[in-house]
Structures are given as C-alpha cells and as structure tokens.
C-alpha cells in the first residue's frame, strides 16, 4: 500500500491516523511536495485528476478523497485495531452522518481559519481579520450544537469512538495546538472533554509526532 501525500497535510493525516487506529503499518508514504507543485505534475494528475493529496494505492485500486480512503481502510481492516464504524448498520449510518456534518458544516468553517492563522503566516502573509472574525463566529455557533450533543453522547456517533470523531482531529489540532486559537473548543465543557479524549489517543499521538 502506498499513501501519496505529506505528513503535515491535514487530509493526508486523516488517512495516516485511520491506518494507525487500525494498527496497520504495511504502507509507504510517497511524498508529494506541494511547495514545488508536485501535485500538479502530469504524472500525479494521472493518479488524482483534481491535483489534491492524499491518494491511496492498494494493489490495483487507486483511491482519492481522504474520507473515502478512511472509509475503505476502516472496512478493509474490520476486525483489526479500533472498530471505526460502530457495530451495526444503524451505528455505521450515524458515523456517516457525523462524517457528513464534519465535511459540509465543520470543515468549511475551520479550514479557512487554519489557512489564515497557520498557513498564511508561514508564507509571510497577514491573516485577513474579517475572514477570521466571520468564521470564528460561525464556528462558535456550530460548536454550540456539538456541545449540546456531546453532553448526551461521549462521542459523536454514540458511546464509541469512530471515524466521525477522527475526521475532526487534523484541522482542530492545527487551530488549538499550532495557532493556539482554540477558545471556541476549550471554552465549551463537553467539546473540550471530547477534544482532550480524542487527541490523547495513541494512534493520534503517533501521527502527530511525524
């Protein structure tokens, strides 16, 4: 198995963390250096026509989109490592539900924040205040809903850790631990407890060390 990507890229990390949770080490990381535009090279575009990382190659399967790759890994290695999809058809549906919430409601708010507060400064640019303010406000409102939900459920899909929780880790880590702007999370009791729990998992610590 090969993972084309970069160990610091949030979407690659989503895949690496899933592999770590499944205790799966039988893969090689093939670096695709975004700084030199390797993701737009003709050879890479043959693998991933949208020019984005990561890509998984497993035998004759070439797969892209980190959440699709994570689902594939969770299913392929079912029975090994952490169960990431729950135990029943209904639990799996709830995992998918919160994966969609992460993808369509959470990610569009936190990604621009991380871009402004972490990646832009790395490139010598100032954060755009209006973007930071607007997205922070909307993220806070979203996390109010998470707070209510997590006051009744230990994890997002129920009382079991799943891909849905995992999928939130990469960008949240960048906002809280790298940008040090995690007040939206840390000021909410149950969201904070959930974050402390999922970010202290051995699989995550292993990937974060890369």
């Amino acid at each position: 198995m090969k993972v084309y990507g970069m160990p610091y890229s949030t979407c690659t990390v989503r895949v690496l963390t899933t592999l770590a949770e499944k205790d799966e080490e039988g893969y090689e990381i093939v670096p695709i250096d975004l700084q030199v535009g390797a993701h737009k090279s003709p050879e890479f575009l043959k693998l991933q026509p949208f020019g984005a990382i990561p890509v998984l190659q497993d035998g004759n399967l070439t797969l892209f989109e980190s959440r699709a790759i994570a689902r594939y890994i969770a299913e392929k290695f079912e029975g090994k490592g952490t169960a990431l999809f729950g135990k029943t058809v209904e639990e799996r549906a709830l995992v998918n539900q919160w994966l969609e919430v992460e993808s369509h409601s959470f990610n569009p708010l936190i990604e621009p924040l991380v871009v402004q507060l972490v990646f832009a400064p790395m490139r010598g640019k100032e954060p755009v205040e209006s973007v930071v303010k607007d997205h922070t406000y909307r993220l806070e409102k979203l996390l109010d809903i998470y707070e209510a939900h997590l006051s009744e459920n230990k994890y997002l899909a129920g009382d079991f850790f799943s891909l849905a929780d995992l999928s939130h880790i990469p960008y949240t880590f960048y906002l809280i631990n790298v940008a040090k702007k995690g007040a939206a999370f840390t000021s909410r009791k149950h969201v904070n407890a959930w974050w402390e729990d999922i970010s202290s998992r051995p699989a995550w610590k292993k990937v974060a060390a890369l």
Partner: protein
Amino acid sequence: MKLYGIASSTCTGRVLLSLFEKEVEDFELVIVNVRKGEGKKPEYIKLQPFGLIPVLEDGDLTLYESRAIIRYIANKYEGQGTALYGKDIKERAKVDQWLEVEGQNFNSAIRSSLGVVSKPPIDEVQLTETFGKLGKVLDIYEEHLSKTQYLAGDFFSLADLSHMTTGWKLFDKYKQGSILFEGRPHVKAWWENISSRPAFKKLLEMI
C-alpha cells in the same frame, strides 16, 4: 419509515431517488418547508439540531445528512432494487470517492451557479464566473467518463445519483447550463443516460 423534507429540495430529492431506485414504497413523506421557517421549529430541531432537511426516521434510528441517508438505504436494502454501492469493497470505495467529489467539488460549484440563475435578472458576469468553475470540474468528469460509463465504473451508483437533483435544477428547471455540455460529449451522454432512469422520472412527478 418517515422522511422529513420536501420533494423540491435537492437534498430531500437525493434521498427520494435512492428509495425509488431500491423500490422502497413503505415510507411517509412528512413535509418540512424550510423556506417557510419550518426547520427552526423546536419539535424539528429535536430531530435535526442544525435545522436542515432531510431527516429519516426508521424505527429507533433518526438519521440526517442526505449522503449518509442514501448510504444507509443502499446498505439496508442491499439485494433489492438497483445495486447502488457496487459489488465489493473496491467498487464501494470508488462510489465513496465520487460521492466525496460530488460533495466537495461539484456541489459547491453548481450551487454557486444555481445561486446566480435562480435570481433574475441574471448577472451575466457572475454567471460566466460560476460556470467557469463548474466547467473546470466537468472537464475532469469529461476525461473520466470517456473511460467509464458511470462515475465509479461501469455501473450506476450512489455517486451518479447524488448529482441528479442539483443537475436537474440547473439543466431542466432553470434551463441553464446546456452550454456546459458543449465540448463535453461524455458528460452530456452520462447526464442524458442517468436522467432517463425511471426512478428519476418518478421523482420529477412529485416536484
């Protein structure tokens, strides 16, 4: 089973399509009209805390997010109606991949276009801009669909289905977007193929 939403909503329509493809008739559509603010009512927020449609209630399970619901329906009714998730784990992964592409790349581009065409008089500059972005995505689809009949392979799946309600709004409801087919014969053929499916025609009768 109860489905909360409204047939004319692209997300509710996505779920209705999957139920029709699976030949499931044993459900009730409970109208929740978000344009009238019905998504903000306290009873509804208990079902869907984000105030969005649709929601599926199936026994003890309350499920939201249309792409999660269609996966659930495809899994629950495996072996009945159209196979929507492929035959094995690798085909399923391809379906998930193109569902993500639809959700991440196609959806935001087509929604921007719909935002422009649904508010006459149409701002031609904005239309050109949004169609430009959608066109870039469709260029990739064109190349891909020159090699396979459907998105995940040579089988119809949830991935193709997921494009149909937003696609219908642009091409058929607002009669815009046919320019996007120019120079993209495989995208055009794919659209004409999937939009001729009986389940789709059944949905259109409801709208």
